[in-house]
Every structure is written in C-alpha cells, then in structure tokens.
C-alpha cells in the first residue's frame, strides 16, 4: 500500500490581484521506504509539493493521502500532531534551535512533541548520534559546528521520532559538493537502516542521481517519473 497517494492536486496562490497556479493536476504514488527526489528549476513547484506532502499547506483541489490520512481535512492542531507523529523535516538552512546543544536539538521532538520518557529518549538519541557520526559533538551548540555537521544533526532530529516519511527541501544547497554527497549518502543509509521514506527536492543534477525515484516538475506539472533500476533510470 502506497505511503503517499496524490490525485489531481492543484495549488493556487493569490498574490495581490493575481492568482498564481503553482501546481496543476499533479498525481503520484510513493511507496514506503522509497528514496525519492522532486527535481526541477526554480518555480517549478517542488517546494510547494513538499509543503503539501509535509502537511504544512493544503491543496486547493484534489486529494492527498499520507500514511492513510487525508491531510487536507486536518485542522491546524491536527496537522501539527500529524507532523509530529508521522513526519520528519530537514531544512536547507538546517534550522537547528540555537539555544539547544546538538543532543538537545535531537531530543527536542521527543521531549516537546512526542513526550517520550527520558530513559527511552536517551537511548534513541545516543543511537542516532552514533549513526550520524556526531556522538563526540553532542554537547556543542549549533554555532560551534560546521554546516555539514549541522545537517547531520538535522537528519538525526528528523529521524529520532521514527517517522514514516522525512521531507528535505534542498538539504544540500548550502553545503559543498563533498559534504552534500556525504549528507545524501547518510540519508540513504538511514533509509536502509530504518526503512523510512525520504523525499528531497534539489536542482543539483549530481545529487539527483542518488535518488531511486525522480519526479521531474516543470511549471507545476510532473513531466516525468524516472525509476532507477540497475544504476540507470527508466
């Protein structure tokens, strides 16, 4: 059963007197434990689509089911609860909380969103700190670590709640190519270990090649779906 089912999604924005059609009749399905990329030039609708799937926005028309939930029907509070329970987020600018240490940043969703008991929290955080290679940096604050390290922490924070889906909007945009590959590979390894679905958007063609399923968007429409088989896309 597909983790995400999108059918004939439209998204329109009102900008002043002008209506901007960001998505036109987008439809797709994504299976659990996939490693998916939305690719396209600026303004193609990648981020809009990610925001809809991430329950941060609602489609103007069409249906969108994520983890068997029609997310268009959720109200503000239910949306927040849904995100906290099912989703993880990785941001282009890392968006770590500056007053919390590396450890506390990863702990935040467990503590403030899922209310996991401290004993259980500690085990999960330590395991993820080890997995992302940040165990020896756990007491540092975000301004004391590099961009690549910040993104590793962000990945750990996104995964610590055991979400079914992690959404990453341009996760490598602010990293050098070496670090970008390291981050993508880390995400892939995490997918392999935890069977979590990853969807990331990018316009970096080298990074795109790491995705197993690629949805190409142009002007708010999916123009191609490519699936990697044996190192090549079909």
């Amino acid at each position, binding site marked *: 059963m597909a983790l995400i089912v999108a059918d004939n999604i439209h998204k329109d924005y009102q900008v002043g007197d002008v209506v901007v059609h960001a998505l036109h009749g987008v439809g797709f399905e994504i299976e659990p434990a996939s490693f998916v990329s939305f690719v396209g030039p600026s303004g193609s609708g990648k981020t809009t689509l990610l*925001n809809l799937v*991430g329950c*941060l*926005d609602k489609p103007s028309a069409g249906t969108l089911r994520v983890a068997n939930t029609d997310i268009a029907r959720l109200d*503000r*509070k239910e949306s*927040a*609860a*849904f*995100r*906290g*329970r099912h*989703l*993880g*987020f990785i*941001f282009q*600018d890392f*968006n770590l*909380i*500056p*007053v*919390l240490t590396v450890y506390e940043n990863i702990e*935040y*969703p467990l*503590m*403030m*969103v*899922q209310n996991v008991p401290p004993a259980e929290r500690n085990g999960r955080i330590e395991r993820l700190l080890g997995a992302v290679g940040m165990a020896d940096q756990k007491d540092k604050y975000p301004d004391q670590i590099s961009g690549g390290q910040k993104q590793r922490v962000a990945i750990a*924070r*996104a995964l610590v709640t055991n979400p079914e889906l992690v959404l990453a909007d341009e996760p490598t945009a602010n990293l050098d190519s070496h670090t970008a590959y390291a981050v993508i590979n880390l995400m892939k390894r995490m997918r392999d270990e935890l069977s979590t679905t990853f969807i990331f958007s990018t316009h970096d063609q080298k990074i795109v090649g790491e995705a197993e399923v690629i949805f190409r968007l142009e002007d708010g429409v999916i123009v191609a779906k490519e699936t990697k088989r044996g190192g090549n896309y079909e």
Partner: protein
Amino acid sequence: MNNLFKIALRNLMRYKRRTLLTASLITIGVVFVLVFTSVTGSFKAMMIGQITDSMMGHLQVHRKGYVASIDNLPLNLNIKPKAYQKIADVLGAAPEIAAFSPRLKFGGMFSNFTETTNIRLNGVYPEKEFQTIPLLTSRVSEGRKTLSRGEIMIPVLLARGLQVKVGDAVVVVATNVDGSVNGKQFVVSGILESATGPGGRDGYIHIEDAAEVLRMPEAEISEVAIRLKDFSRLSTAVNHLEGQLAGEVNKEGRSIFEVHSWEKLSPFFNIARMIDVMTFFIKIMLIAIVLISIMNVMIMAVYERIREIGTIAAIGTLPGKILSMFVIEGFCLGVLGAIIGNLIGVAVVLMVNLIGIRFDFAQQTGLLLSASVNPADLLFISVIVIVVAVLASLQPAFKASRMEPIEALRHV
C-alpha cells in the same frame, strides 16, 4: 514544563543585554514602589498611631446624635449611668477589646485668678484613660504622668498663654445641663503637648470632679473611647459592636448608641486616604512599566525568532506549547525583576532607617521615620509584577502560536 522553562531561560540568556535592561527597568519600578509604599505606609501608620493612641482611641461609642453636635459638647446628649453600664457590659465581654475609657466632656472657663479663657475638658478615670490612650502620658511635657482628684492636666498653649505652671491653683467654671453655673478649684498636675486633630488641645480632670463641677449626682458619659487588641480588625470590631449595641433602642424603636471608628471622627483620615490613592497610582505606574517593557521585549523576541517558530511548528510542536514558551519567558522576566527589585527595595528601606529621616507632623516635631517592609506588600507587588509580565507576553506569544509554519519558514 521543566523543559519549557529551560528553553525560556536560555532564550533570555541569548540576549543578555536586552534581558538585563528589561529586568533592570522592572527592578527600578519595583524598588520605587516598595520604598514609596514602605515610607508612606510607615508615615501613615505613625500618623494614625499619633491620632488614636494619644487622644482618640481606635473607636468611640456615643449617644445617637452626639457626634453631629460634638463641637458644642452637648451635655443633654450624654449617656446616662444606667445606659453606660450596658455599654460597659458589652465592651467587657468583647474579646477584641483591649481597654475602654468613659469620658465626660464639657466646655468651661479656665481662670488663673487674673485671666480667664475657655477650655474643653475631659473627665476621665485616669487608669482607664491611660490604658486606652497609651501615648497620653508621653504628651505630658511637664509635671506628673498621673491624675488624681482635684488635679488638672492642661494643654501647653493654655499654660503658656495664661502663664500657668505645674502646681499652680486654677479655677474651672462650667454651666451644667440646667443652665446653672458652678466652679471648682484645681491644681495643675501636668502640662500636655498638643496632639493633632479634634481633642488635641483638651484638658483632663478626674471624672468625679467633672461630675461635681456639672452638679451630676452620678457621672454621665459623653463618649467611650475604645482600644482594640488588633488594630487591623477595626472594621470588624465596629460591625461587631454595632451589632451588639443595636438592641439598645429608645421608645421610638431607634437605637440609642452610635459607634464610630477614628476614621469617621478625624479629618486626618482623608490624608491617610490620599496616601492610599497616591500608592495606588504609583502601583499603576509600575504596572505600566512592566506591561510596556515586557510587551516590547517579547514582541522583539517573536519577531527575531520567526524562523525558529516556523521550525518548531513544522516538526509538530502544538500551538499551545509555543504559546507557553513565550509566556514563560515573560514570566521569568517578571520573576527576575520582582526578586531583584524586592531585594534592592528592602536594602533601600533598611538604609532609609539607618540614615534616620526625621519629620514634623503638626505640633509633633522630630518624629523619626521608621520605614518597614510589610511581607504582604512584598508578596502583593511581586504578584502584580509577575501577573502583568505574563499578561504582557500573552499577545506576542499568541501571535507566535498562530503563525503558519510555512510562512514563518519563508521569513528572512
């Protein structure tokens, strides 16, 4: 909840200078209010003490209608001995009453045999009067602090005006209720410093001498001055006594007696009220300071952290928790300002006492201001500051909690 406090405190420490400035502003406000409240409160307590303990008592019982014509000291509105006994029985049985003193008041002529002037006199039982009005003896500037039959204590202005000294013989002449005149010779036993307010320039004689001058076979009573064990229970005591004495009615079914607290009898109650009003407005100023400074700093905090709010909202933090985070920041600022303000305020009050500020109150000169901090004031001011701090942070916190994560994340 602990985690919310941890995050709130760290966010406050993140902008140390701003937090310090805001807390300082609240601190200054708290110090100002605390010192003002302590000093004016002490001044007020001293003023009330002077009025009640040196002449008036905490409350008084009169025959109905007496207070309305109190300036005339009407003899026809005195309480008869039988009726007074009923009052004495009630007062004797009332647990809140420390002492009471019946007085026979009248106006007369005072003569040193060469000059004559008018005088207001209180006929009292000296022991009862000294128990009820404990500062009366401290007003005796010359002579003995006792009063026996045949003796008179006179106000200092009268003594100076007529050049009368302790030990001198004087004559008091008065008209009794029937209109006939009588006189009696007294020896001056003491000279009294003036107190402030009505009765502050009265003289004192023994009540039996007063009855003799007025040709009363048995002393009638003009008023009963009462001292309470606990002054803070004044209004309760007045209500209780009114209730107890309400049963005493005349033939028309109207109550015979009326009970008045010092507040109803002394014009200085209005000064006390003015002090309360000033204190109230000072507290309003404190509320304004806290409200504006906290609201300002919290609006800034929300504006500067829009992306952070977007992030925590995106990862599933419920709006209520986001609201709590900011409200707790305001709460912590309020607590910080209240604690530091109270500590500094208490220190300033102690310094005021160490310096020893003296002031004059009416005829009383060189009164030493003894400022004291009432724990209830500390608590009240702290609660005001903290509650206002929380209220001031509610609007920015509500705004933060209502932010759409998608818009907040886009904020640059």
